[in-house]
């Protein structure tokens, strides 16, 4: 029973990690920019959910209707203003600019909203489904289901639709895609927009159980990188699978070895993946590990 509870907790946590990582894998895999501001995007999105709740009384789940389009536009804007001018530059410049954007965003949040911890008050934040002695947190289950749906939806979008195929073409070989008449700049903006919109969605799903403060991005940002590298860059199923694996590893290591060491285990996995299979569990083909370089 104890093992079952550990596994459930690990899976639910994995759903959260997957949800947070899918936006990053999109940007990482297609635009080939290592978005170091990913965690800060999430933080700003969480503030948006918070303020929609406080000022308009909007339920965090309803706020999906706002956060997703707002962050799509935000992503397009960032790509157009910040990334596009340096698209052809070496990776170091892109790293510096996204890192700088992250610093600006987190300090902006500190300036505007203080270092206070803010959370939304909803009746279901600690709601639980009990099956015999097992407990499953309702908001975590919802996040898990959303992560699964998004993975399926994004996969079919990328494989079935015209736009999706264009995005994949660009991510696999930019030059060839350009030669085939694909508007690469537009695809970049759309891909960055989608990646950012997924962050908006993640924020709406996280706010019922978490809380927001200016440096919360660091907590989730780092894990998202591990998940994305583990799953394979640009691969939605990879991100989903990677999230679940990291969640389970963390839960099992925490329960059976030592909670203080649980991070050590997923970083060991991270290093092993980099050494043995740098393109990730579900590879997107040769060269995809050299993202941004």
């Amino acid at each position, binding site marked *: 029973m104890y093992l079952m*509870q*550990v596994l459930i907790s690990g899976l639910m946590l994995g759903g959260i990690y997957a949800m947070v990582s899918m936006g990053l894998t999109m940007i990482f895999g297609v635009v080939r920019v290592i978005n170091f501001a990913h965690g800060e995007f999430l933080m700003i999105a969480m503030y948006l959910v918070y303020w929609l709740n406080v000022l308009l009384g909007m339920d965090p789940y309803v706020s999906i209707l706002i956060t997703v389009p707002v962050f799509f536009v935000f992503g397009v804007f960032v790509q157009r203003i910040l990334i596009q001018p340096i698209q052809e530059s070496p990776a170091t*410049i892109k790293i510096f600019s996204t890192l*700088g954007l992250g610093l600006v965003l987190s300090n902006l949040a500190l300036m505007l909203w203080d*270092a206070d911890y803010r959370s939304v008050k909803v009746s279901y934040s600690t709601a639980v489904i009990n099956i015999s002695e097992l407990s499953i947190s309702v908001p975590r289950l919802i996040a898990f289901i959303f992560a699964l749906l998004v993975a399926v939806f994004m996969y079919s979008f990328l494989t079935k639709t015209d736009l999706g195929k264009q995005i994949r073409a660009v991510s696999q070989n930019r030059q060839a895609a350009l030669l085939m008449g694909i508007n690469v700049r537009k695809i970049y903006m759309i891909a960055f927009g989608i990646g950012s919109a997924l962050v908006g969605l993640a924020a709406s799903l996280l706010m019922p159980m978490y809380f927001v403060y200016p440096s919360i991005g660091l907590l989730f940002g780092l894990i998202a990188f591990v998940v994305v590298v583990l799953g394979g860059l640009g691969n939605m199923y990879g991100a989903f699978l990677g999230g679940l694996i990291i969640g389970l590893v963390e839960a099992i290591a925490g329960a059976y070895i030592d909670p*203080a060491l649980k991070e050590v285990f997923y970083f060991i996995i991270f290093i092993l993946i980099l050494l043995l299979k740098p393109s990730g569990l579900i590879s997107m083909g040769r060269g995809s590990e050299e993202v941004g370089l």
Partner: protein
Amino acid sequence: MKKKIYFLISVILILSLALTGCGGGGADTGNDSEGPVVFGAIFPLTGPNALLGDESLRGAQIMVDELNANGGLWGREVVLNVADAPDATAAQTEAERLITKDGVKIMFGAYSSAIANVASDVCARYEVPYFEFGGIGTDIMRKGYPYVWRTCADAFGFGTGQAQYVTEICLPALGIEPADAKVVLAYEDSLYGTSVSEACQEALLEFGYKPENIKNIPYAATSVDLSSVILDAKSFNPDAFFTVSYVNDQILLARQAEELNFQPPVWIGAGGGMSMTPTLEAVGNGMYGLTGIDFPQYEVDKEKINGVDEFVAKYEEKYGAFPRSGHSMTNYAGMQIMIDILEEAGSMDKDEIKAAATAMDKPFNTYIGGWGAKFDETGQNVNAPLVVGMWTTEKLVAVWPEEFAITEPVIPIPSWSDKRAM
């Protein structure tokens, strides 16, 4: 291309500098017999510790304003030369700057133990007296510096206080002897968590708890999930759950304990996240009955304890809101004590200050919020008060020790479902 890189780097650096607000303001120099008396103040006013660093400084500032309105120190005005130290590295340079460039002859700070540690090192090197008002790390006082004093309680006091409260108040209410009691100590694994819980564990063993009945669960405060801590604790089935946590992890512990239906009869924290209003806001009624040891807060027995309402009134007048935490009152008390010592010393001479501090013997409740002052040979104030508070659905109210208590603690803590129905 190179040019572009340098340009970008410099833009980012400038932006981050501008936004974090580095660089201190202009400073008054000179502490001779003419002009104002300058105190160096070092606090984290930007960065992750900004909120409580600023709250701490406010308390000291209120006391200085009050002093100046009543004729100042030695008939001279007192001015604070404030330095912002968001982290230990900045504390090093800022403390050096205050001493070597601005020539301050006395310094206080710092809320964060990491910053206090560095600031006291620098002061010791230049033999400038240093007063710590809020940092509780035990190692600050263990270095044997002759001119460093701490007015507040330390991690050792927090840990032993937790153990004492549970042993003297909670176990009798539960009808359990210490030898039979099972306890879990869950703590964040930085210096703060480990030093408090080590002191707590030592005290528990002295009270007669059995080593095999004490379970330690350290964890990283940066975790986004603490279900493994809760599951581990739950499987041990403790009579009392001791935690040492920041806000982030305290909220997670409480929420995930409810999700996983972990229901310890006693839950006691130690400062940090347990005493903070944002924790109550995030967890809501689930906090009811949880207790934490900390510096005196505002909900204490005001018939017996000095000056609390007057302080709140002054704070509200100056800053337009209720104090954000007890840190301002703690620093107000610290400043009261430091000024008393300086009055007694009659000058900025370090040895006169040391003589005055060593001779000081003020019982509990001499100053605001129950503070007393009597320094041991390391410079630690042994008459610094600590209070256990219990969360109601609205606020943290004092339940122990008796002189501070307003109400009786609720033991055992009601079930999560009962609390949600409140």
